[in-house]
């Protein structure tokens, strides 16, 4: 099994890196970009086949390490 964890800043948390990327996209001539929010992606290779157990374990990983839940949200996708 594989899992992808996406960590993004919560709404309302200032994202100066996202703003800088947005400015750079505009300076490259890309129009119609309203706002850019940047984040992180973690790809995990997992042993075992129990998806529910994996989701529970990855949730624990996110809460304890992968995300700072004061400022970040996380989303978990699991695939075979």
């Amino acid at each position: 099994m594989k899992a992808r964890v996406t960590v993004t800043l919560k709404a309302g948390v200032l994202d100066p890196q996202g703003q800088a990327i947005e400015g750079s996209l505009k300076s490259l001539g890309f129009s119609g970009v309203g706002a850019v929010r940047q984040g992180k992606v973690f790809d995990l290779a997992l042993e075992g086949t129990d998806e529910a157990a994996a989701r529970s374990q990855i949730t624990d990983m996110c809460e304890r390490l992968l995300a700072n839940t004061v400022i970040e949200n996380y989303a978990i996708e699991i695939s075979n």
Partner: protein
Amino acid sequence: MKSAVIVFPGLNRDRDMIAALTKISGTAPAVVWHQDADIPDVDLVVIPGGFSYGDYLRCGAIAARSPIMDKVRERAARGVKVLGVCNGFQILIEAGLLPGALMRNTSLKFVCREVKLEVTNADTAFTRGYSNGQIIRCPVAHHDGNYFADAETIARIEGNGQVAFRYAEGTNPNGSINDIAGILNDSKNVLGLMPHPENLIEAAHGGTDGRALFAGLLDKVA
């Protein structure tokens, strides 16, 4: 007065901190490597600045999860004074010993310069060498010092006197909410701050404004 300095791989201000504690207290601190099993019996535990674990994942995140931090947490719960400077502040925040988060500076730039600090709460073991409202000079050197917390947390820590230092006179180098430069835990025995008081303690540094933090603390815990 007995102190200990916790060292993680990638810190680089540990020697400055050890020198400051030695000069001001007259006793060299115990140096505790992150893999050591425990912290000696001390009155003050200090986590200095630097770039623990290369700032991978988030500043302070990896160090905050190392087993020695469970020992720091135990000491803090027993009322032992804990001080985190710069990366040490980030580690205390990531370890949950202090509220909020430290984010990338709004300028996106690493800022290395001197700022002015206002002493916001002089009624603590860490700040008793200063007076309320006193403006002091202090160097900063960081990329992620932009203090953030939700509105409820900010209201709570402001109301509870947990803001120890604020950037003063328009010198906020990182965009932190309410110009917050250093905060205390609820029981005021844990302080984290981004500026480096250990780098302004003798004439050769160009000033001694940082000295009172250590001097006041050492008096208190002696």
